[in-house]
């Protein structure tokens, strides 16, 4: 087990290396791919180092990153504050669901991005427009998965809890919410993924800082290397954030990461 794991990691790293070599070979001077369309890896790296210190369109790279993170985490967090309790409550009290769900269903099929023009008209191009779009994007997975988490609690467990003398409140707090935790962790990741992706688009459309803003400017200025730096940063930050959420599952819901028995 341990050995095959090391082998896997080694193979994974090897594959990454192989692709970087292929990339370098394709974009070498006089190579088949012109660097205007796709810059060489060393150019991208040099640009990355440079942007870390020197401002590009107004801010250094860390500042752009912070600007993006601020918006995405605010929108995502606010959506969690609304989505989790509302989702659980809607699953638990069906009357509430009957009242709220139709409205929600009406809004849900609209891609979160389609709200951008509206929020810009209503709130201007400041942070609040982007935060509210991110909020809408994150709310759907938070709410739907919180509901699903409650529904997927085995009815037998509720029966068992009742025969052991638990009342409704105790069942909700101890059985439903705890059993639902792994699903909520998954919801958190999904919500963050949606939020992050929506934020990038929002920044492309209306922002004064942030990675999406860097990307769209780089594209207009034909700074392909900057564009790639921005894209990589967007990808890496996304991975880091979802990875961190994944780690919380270990201590939030240790039972769910044990690996199922095969019998």
């Amino acid at each position: 087990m341990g050995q095959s794991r090391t082998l896997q990691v080694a193979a994974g790293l090897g594959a990454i290396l192989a692709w970087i070599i292929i990339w370098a070979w394709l974009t070498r001077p006089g190579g088949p791919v012109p660097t205007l369309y796709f810059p060489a890896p060393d150019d991208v790296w040099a640009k990355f180092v440079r942007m870390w210190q020197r401002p590009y369109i107004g801010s250094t790279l860390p500042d752009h990153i912070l600007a993006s993170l601020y918006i995405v985490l605010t929108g995502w967090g606010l959506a969690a504050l609304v989505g989790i309790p509302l989702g659980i409550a809607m699953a638990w009290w069906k009357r509430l669901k009957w009242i709220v769900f139709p409205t929600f269903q009406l809004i849900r099929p609209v891609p979160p991005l389609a709200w951008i023009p509206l929020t810009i008209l209503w709130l201007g191009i400041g942070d609040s427009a982007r935060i509210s779009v991110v909020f809408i994007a994150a709310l759907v997975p938070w709410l739907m998965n919180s509901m699903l988490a409650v529904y997927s609690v085995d009815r037998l467990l509720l029966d068992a809890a009742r025969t052991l003398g638990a009342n409704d409140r105790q069942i909700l707090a101890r059985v439903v919410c705890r059993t639902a935790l792994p699903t909520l962790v998954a919801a958190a990741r999904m919500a963050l993924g949606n939020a992050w992706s929506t934020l990038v688009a929002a920044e492309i459309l209306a922002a004064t800082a942030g990675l999406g803003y860097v990307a769209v400017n780089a594209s207009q200025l034909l700074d392909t290397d900057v564009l790639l730096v921005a894209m990589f940063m967007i990808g890496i930050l996304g991975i880091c954030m979802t990875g961190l959420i994944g780690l919380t599952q270990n201590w939030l819901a240790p039972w769910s990461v044990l690996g199922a028995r095969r019998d």
Partner: protein
Amino acid sequence: MIERRLERMGVMTDRGKAAAYGIFSLSVLLALWICATSLFQWIEPRVLPSPAQVIRQFAWIITEPFSGLRLPGHILFSLERWGWGVLTAGLVGIPVGVFFAWNPWFKTFLNPVFELIHFIPPFAYIPLAVLWFGASTATQAMVVFVAAFPAIVINSQLGVAQVQKIYIDAARVFGASPFRTLCRVVLPAAAPSIYTGLRIAISNGWMALVGAELVVGKVGLGFMIAQGQENASVATIFVGVITIGCLGVLIDTLVQRSERYVLPWRRVAS
């Protein structure tokens, strides 16, 4: 997809009551909207148009060309771009996903590229696509592709990986070659999961398309919304948003309904 699962769990009972509550709450909402706009003008029409204005705008866009095209024209352009993106994603994604599960080395090698597509949000590809293809159909199709591709790969892979080993072993015992095992046993068993992947991909692609159209292009529904913002015409934005939402629901419903014809053996299961 989630709703289907909810339904299977028997949550969607009490239909009548649910509908009554729903109609009530939606009516309240509509009444509030009418009060706030037409009746008492709490909110300026510039900020929130009245239902009547939105309907009028709808009629206008259907009958009169808006930026050169009537509403159906914009819809067709959007659908075309979306179709190309999803189609390529399916043609490439299903084989890739199946082989990811079938051959670990293939997966190890291609994984870095896949993760790049998976983890960089589709919208981050918009500037690159613009740079590569300019304002052509390919730009939007590429964004749709990036949005649709990962879901297809992941679900195809999952479907194949989840095929219980006993089926494969059973096929082996009966002397089937790996390729025939793949075609006869694995793919049919994985098909529901692949189908789920396609469904997710189709709706992801639709979402991404709107984003792409907001940024580039001179036609399409996303462009219409962007144009509404430009002209500070909230009614136009509403028309666009409603059309996009309805089309999204329509497409999803069609795909969902078609499952029983495409995968007849699933009919028993659900």
